[in-house]
């Protein structure tokens, strides 16, 4: 396996498919992640990469994995002993737990976001010099577009922060089922930030390209460009709003519809490129259009879906994704690495992230967004690698992904009549009692709350709320002190098991 990877990485290196300058210095520890260390060199650094050449960009979520993978394997001979201590994606040793998969995923999104944020900072700082002189009615429009992007970073960081917080809580909960239950609560946040970051990286590409146009294309109309940018912004707006809501249903819908949106954005970008090329062909003498276009090194997945220069059919048309030894391949390119697929498989299996969302992510990374196939599934081989099976599909019960349970009403596990009691024991914010709702069919809900005719014994009512509050308050009497949040969760977990209430928590509404 390793030998094969080595051969493959050598092959890719020699064919120029992996950019060598990013490889870390020899002897560096293996848990070093090169991702965020090399932000793009400003807006007008000529890219020496041919368009269409595979660049596992450090800023696309899945794109950084191939590089890490090769780095890790390439360096294994040098520093094998440190491999086990790798904090990120430490492989089989640490990677087996769902918690580690969540942490890896958070780390992955964070790395991408760092890069995106770095670019925003640069865009804000190094405003195209000619901007002020050239267009008097600009009125800081370009800056506002940049600020729009920067503003998104705030909620994305917040989402990642709260997902990290939940992971910490999960690690402290003693009961393994409850740990998984709490981990699943990171799902919507993880999913929202993953897709939000993908979208933001695309916005960065639009802005970088626009900055290059403003600077170099004197015959291009700034006003026209701003109208275009505004349109793109409006295209992204509803999806960003849905993702920002962190509401599981809205996030799920936005994520699964994202390939379609990316298709539209690809068309917008291609049109912008075409217009610029045309304008420069007519009026420009100094620089050729191709030079300017190549100056922008793209960081988003757009580069996978954009038509190659010169204009041709979309690159992905008719080319399908397949599962190879290195990951999901499109032709000879790795679209997402095998490690990324494995991480996603674990997240899907643990019910943290939904399979349709992962499908959408893979398709976006593969640039399979141009065709009218918004909800089309991935090829069987890729689906198998992601662990697609009816059981797995049923694991994630939020949104439309659940197996029949998705429409069942939500109910508070921790009785909302006692909200204050729980607040006093740490159930606040991301851990408030509204986060601990479960979907129950009517008959199950009634049975648990004293209905149905399942009771044989006459003298024990077994009504959930009363039973639970008694178990908790009498435990406090026994302990002679307030229970901690984890202690409460531990007791709740045991009692849920006794009632066979699955620990698939969804967010309910505060009334």
């Amino acid at each position, binding site marked *: 396996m390793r030998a094969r990877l080595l051969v493959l990485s050598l092959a890719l290196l020699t064919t120029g498919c992996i950019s060598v300058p990013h490889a870390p210095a020899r002897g560096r520890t293996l848990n070093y992640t090169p991702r965020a260390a090399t932000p793009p060199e400003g807006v007008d650094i000529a890219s020496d990469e041919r368009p269409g050449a595979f660049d596992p960009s450090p800023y696309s979520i899945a794109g950084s994995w191939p590089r890490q993978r090769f780095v890790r394997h390439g360096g294994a001979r040098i520093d094998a002993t440190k491999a086990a201590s790798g904090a990120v994606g430490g492989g089989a040793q640490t990677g087996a737990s769902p918690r580690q998969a969540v942490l890896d995923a958070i780390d992955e999104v964070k790395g991408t976001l760092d890069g995106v944020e770095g670019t925003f900072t640069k865009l804000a700082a190094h405003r195209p010099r000619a901007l002020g002189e050239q267009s008097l009615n600009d009125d800081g429009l370009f800056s506002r577009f940049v600020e729009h992007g920067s503003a998104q970073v705030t909620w994305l960081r917040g989402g990642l922060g709260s997902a990290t917080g939940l992971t910490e809580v999960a690690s402290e909960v003693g009961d393994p089922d409850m740990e998984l239950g709490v981990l699943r609560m990171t799902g919507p946040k993880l999913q929202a930030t993953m897709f939000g970051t993908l979208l933001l990286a695309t916005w960065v590409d639009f802005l970088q390209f626009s900055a290059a146009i403003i600077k170099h294309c004197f015959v291009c109309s700034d006003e026209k460009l701003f109208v275009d940018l505004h349109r793109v912004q409006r295209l992204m707006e509803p999806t960003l709003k849905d993702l920002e809501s962190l509401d599981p249903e809205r996030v799920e819908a936005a994520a699964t519809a994202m390939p379609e949106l990316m298709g539209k954005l690809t068309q917008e970008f291609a049109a912008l490129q075409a217009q610029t090329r045309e304008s420069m062909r007519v009026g420009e003498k100094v620089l050729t259009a191709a030079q300017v276009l190549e100056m922008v090194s793209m960081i988003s997945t757009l580069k996978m879906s954009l038509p190659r220069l010169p204009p041709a059919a979309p690159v992905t048309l008719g080319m399908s994704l397949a599962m190879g030894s290195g990951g999901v391949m499109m032709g000879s390119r790795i679209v997402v690495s095998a490690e990324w697929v494995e991480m996603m498989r674990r997240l899907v299996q643990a019910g943290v992230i939904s399979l349709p969302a992962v499908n959408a992510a893979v398709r976006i990374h593969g640039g399979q967004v141009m065709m009218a196939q918004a909800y089309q599934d991935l090829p069987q081989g890729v689906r198998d690698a992601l662990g697609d099976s009816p059981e797995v599909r*049923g694991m994630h019960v939020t949104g439309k992904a659940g197996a029949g349970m998705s429409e069942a009403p939500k109910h508070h596990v921790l009785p909302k009549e006692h909200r204050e009691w729980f607040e006093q024991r740490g159930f606040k914010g991301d851990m408030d009692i509204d986060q601990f709702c479960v979907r*129950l069919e009517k*008959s199950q809900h009634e*049975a648990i709350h004293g209905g149905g005719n*399942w009771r044989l014994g006459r003298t*024990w009512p077994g009504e959930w709320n009363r039973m639970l509050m008694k178990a908790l308050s*009498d435990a406090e*009497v026994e302990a002679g002190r307030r229970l901690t949040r984890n*202690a409460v969760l531990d007791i709740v977990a045991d009692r849920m098991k006794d009632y066979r209430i699955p620990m698939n928590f969804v967010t309910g509404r505060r009334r």
Partner: protein
Amino acid sequence: MSDGAAWQGNIKARLYERVRERGYDSLTAFADARPAVPLFVLADELGNDVAAVQVLSGLLYEAERSRRVTRFVRDLLVRLLSQSLPDGWPAVMDDANVFKVAKALGSWSAYTPETHQERGRLAREALRANPPPAGWRPLGPDDELLRVLLPDEEA
């Protein structure tokens, strides 16, 4: 998948069907053959569409009929203690052990039938005042200490 399956269909009929399939004519006989085993383990053995509280209610029903509810309440405590404290009563009462004892006794209180709430409360009070020796691990409802704590009064 256990999602909701335990709460569908004829719950009582299923419970007794499973018990008979395993060669017992009552839940009590089935449970007695598995002393000091947590309720959820009993339920699992009967099927993943059987819930522990259904077993509990069935055991209580049989105890009510045979007028042996006090024995049932002792049996309940034994099973909850074995779940929280599999190695017996702790020697050192650190935070973790205080919690384990509290969880078992609090849950016992929540699962105790109304008729025995007051006696249960007194028994817990007695346990707090005079904790059992370290390592105490009752193996069934007829444990000596338990019978002192909660003696039969029916019969």
